[in-house]
């Protein structure tokens, strides 16, 4: 049985992933891995693949903006930056240099649920990456100077985004209305006031609470000797102390929506060159198994070139406008479906919105032809398989899946589950969640 947090899992996955069933070909993912836990609670996943002499290491912490208290927004994003500003044995920004000098690649991402660090290096440098990651997990250098530098950098960035990115404020407002509670609805980057008021102690507390081995997963994928990897991991990570039982208190379930009725708002945007609209549906906390069909619905509505809503809007909107976008997003245990489209006029926005509801109505009353369903399953399958086809993607995929699944060992069966989705499941979920009274519209006017 998959959990609600599992839904979150995919939804983050679902943004780029797929599932699928096809008329031909295998429906099981070519994915092998093993996993175990260190004494300090750090989960370790190993996935060997000897096609190329490279190895990827991903470390994911269950720490995101949903873990920030009110008045302390921006902490999770700031923390990601601070992880590159030096630790006890690694000087500031040298983490990057250690990787780059050996031909490696690295990156990190913070989101609402988690923060992820990953690097790919020649396989003979596995020890180096484990040394680097363990050093910042064990002993990050959090000094006044480092903190001030990172905070100032974020404070420079925040107004810049608001002043240069069209629709930026409308996205934030839309999120607040759609998720409607503080934990899920606030911006990952935080507000300028909150960030300005953050203190070094806030950062130290966040690091001490969430950047601990028993709140993290370490995944190694690629060409390595399993025993050698286990030895290195034990050497570098096993003595990092864990934290007690007060770690990461369970997130409160999302509150019930205020009213079962459609909400429509209109905002103005100084930077927008064209009007636009956001349209969203609250998917409630869907049951774990619903997640699979909801993810396929995502494909049916907006993924690929032949998806239903993308095509409907193509017939209304000017071909010169940026393509409309849509997708599931999960924050904590709350899932939503979000659509965004620019338009020539607000009248056109209304026309588009009517077309969306009309297309959804069509999908709700008739089972989708098998051939069309197979097409979307194949798209999903392609994306799913793509995510495990390189060591970097596989390391990230496994680490994220671990954080969001209750039964991680069921992962190899997941693709089959996606492939077995029936038209009945699709219709049932569309009728359950994609209702007018469950929707929110934010129209954006130009100034």
């Amino acid at each position, binding site marked *: 049985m998959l959990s609600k947090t599992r839904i979150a899992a995919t939804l983050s996955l679902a943004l780029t992933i797929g599932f699928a069933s096809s008329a031909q070909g295998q429906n099981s993912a070519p994915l092998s891995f093993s996993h175990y836990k260190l004494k300090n609670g750090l989960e370790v996943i190993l996935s060997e693949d000897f096609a190329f002499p490279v190895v990827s290491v991903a470390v994911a912490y269950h720490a995101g903006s949903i873990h920030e208290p009110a008045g302390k927004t921006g902490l999770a994003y700031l923390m990601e930056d601070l992880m590159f500003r030096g630790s006890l044995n690694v000087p500031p920004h040298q983490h990057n240099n250690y990787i780059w000098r050996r031909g490696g690649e690295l990156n990190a991402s913070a989101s609402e649920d988690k923060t992820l660090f990953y690097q*790919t290096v020649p396989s003979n440098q596995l*020890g180096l990456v484990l040394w680097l990651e363990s050093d910042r997990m064990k002993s990050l250098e959090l000094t006044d100077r480092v903190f001030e530098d990172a905070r100032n950098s974020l404070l420079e960035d925040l107004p810049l985004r608001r002043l240069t990115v069209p629709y930026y404020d409308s996205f934030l407002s839309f999120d607040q209305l759609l998720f409607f509670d503080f934990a899920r609805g606030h911006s990952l980057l935080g507000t300028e006031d909150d960030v300005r008021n953050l203190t070094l102690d806030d950062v130290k507390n966040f690091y001490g609470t969430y950047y601990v081995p028993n709140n993290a997963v370490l995944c190694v994928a690629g060409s390595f000797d399993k025993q050698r990897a286990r030895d290195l991991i034990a050497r*570098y990570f096993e003595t990092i102390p864990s934290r007690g039982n007060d770690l990461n208190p369970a997130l409160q379930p999302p509150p019930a929506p205020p009213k079962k009725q459609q909400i429509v708002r209109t905002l103005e945007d100084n930077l927008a060159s064209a009007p636009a609209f956001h349209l969203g549906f609250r998917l409630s906390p869907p049951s774990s198994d619903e997640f699979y069909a909801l993810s396929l619905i995502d494909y049916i509505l907006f993924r690929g070139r032949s998806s239903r809503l993308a095509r409907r809007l193509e017939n209304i909107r000017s071909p010169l406008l940026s393509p409309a976008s849509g997708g599931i997003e999960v924050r904590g245990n709350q899932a939503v479906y979000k659509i965004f489209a620019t338009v020539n006029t607000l009248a056109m926005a209304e026309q588009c919105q009517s077309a969306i509801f009309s297309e959804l109505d069509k999908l709700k009353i008739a089972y989708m032809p098998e051939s069309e369903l197979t097409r979307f399953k194949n798209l999903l399958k392609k994306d799913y398989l793509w995510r495990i086809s390189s060591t970097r993607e596989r390391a990230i995929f496994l680490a994220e899946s671990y954080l969001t699944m209750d039964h991680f060992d069921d992962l190899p069966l997941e693709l089959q589950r996606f492939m077995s989705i029936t038209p009945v499941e699709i219709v049932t979920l569309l009728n359950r969640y994609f209702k007018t009274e469950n929707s929110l519209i934010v129209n954006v006017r130009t100034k």
Partner: protein
Amino acid sequence: MTKIRIILSLAAVLWATLLYAQREPFRRNPPSPDPLQELKLPLIDTAVMSNRLSVSVAYRDDVPFIGLELIVFAGESFSPERSPGMAMFAAQMLGRGSLTHSTSEFQEILDSVGGTFSVSVNPDYVLVSFHFLEEYLDQALQLISEMLLQPNFSEREIASARLRVTYDLSEKDKDPEFVGQRHLIRLLFNDHPYAKSSFTREAIRTWNLKDLQDFFGRTYRPNNAHIVLTGSLNLRTAVRKVSTFLNLWQPQEISGSLIPLSLAPEKTRLCLIDVPQSQEAMIFLGTSYPLPSVPEQFDLKVLNQVLGGTLNSRLFMNLRESKAFAKFAFSEADLWTAGGAFIIRAKVRPDVAAASIKEIKKEIEGMANLSSEEIEQAKAYLIGHFPMEIEPFENFSGKIAEIKALGAGDECWSKYYEQVSLVNAERAVAAAKKYLLRPFLIVVAGDKNRLADQLAEIGSFEVFDNKGQFLYTVNGKGAAHEARGMRPEFQRRPGHK
């Protein structure tokens, strides 16, 4: 007493630290690497079919996809003189259905096979990249066959493609990076067909159905193309499958070949491209040369790595990390069939554009003095990075397509490590003297009102509008000469007799 306490406390801290360090001394320094693992690459097998279509295959069974890369030597250099951009126009039409299937039906087929599809155009060739679930090879080849043998050149699709390109180019005309690069290509390649890649929005007016059909009919021929298939299949299967779907593709004699690029420019030349209201300045420095030998190509790779290949190279470390002038500063050693070009690009604050150019020049001059240590570091990067570069499936297919398109051999594939290893400081410096320590064409794209005074500090420069029209010349630290009908005699462009 207090002093004693302090001393005792410090001693305790020191003792604890030493104890800690002794307990886990391995944390203090990075571990030594394990021995470098061997990179085993599949052979690239090639066959030529009866219609003279070349088919290459590289076996890879660790991913359930097939990569199909179609190379057609119909890049921008082959666009007719009267219709610049025709190569891109023809490539745009490839995804727009066939006589059998509409555009939307094409899109459905692409989705049905779990496909990703893209088309790119460079000066030499068009590259169609199509990756799909391995069980759909037949359907994918059927689609490619329809694109090539039954293209849909309906007036409706042509109008739609023109509209798209017009809009895209008009948007890009506001982007200093795009505008600067376009002018660099035009001025650097000058009379060479590679300059055709710099076409502007105005060229779209020259596109018509007849020219499109003529261009397509002349260049999209099997004897002017190469298909690369990667995945779990061998050459025999690949040739059989490709033959089934493309045996009716008829060859035709292809006329003309590209003349080699020359060493250019002969003298340093500075150009300012006006992009009004631009908040940033884009700096390009470029130099072109005939096709270097294979060892020299690797020398240039190493030089590029030292100078500006990555975030750790000299240009980035200087202009961004040290001086905080730039958002980015990189270099690239490009290769095409007729030669190569070494290009430096930096996005900088307009107020430090001239200072940035000076720093870039200084870094280029620094290529005359390279230590063995720096060369070895660059080589370590290239060797370490190569497997990472080709491991993602789309990159793997793309790299083989590039090798085949350039007519490169095993030196760039299975002997890559060996070739990089052979580069040393002596060779690198010799290559730098031959290819880099010479005049560069410098193009700066940005708001001329914010840049002109600074550039005059460097020397004389020509000013163009963002469409490439010459406006006037500014003498170093001197007054502007407005263009009146024709440019002053003494300002003739280098390369023009």
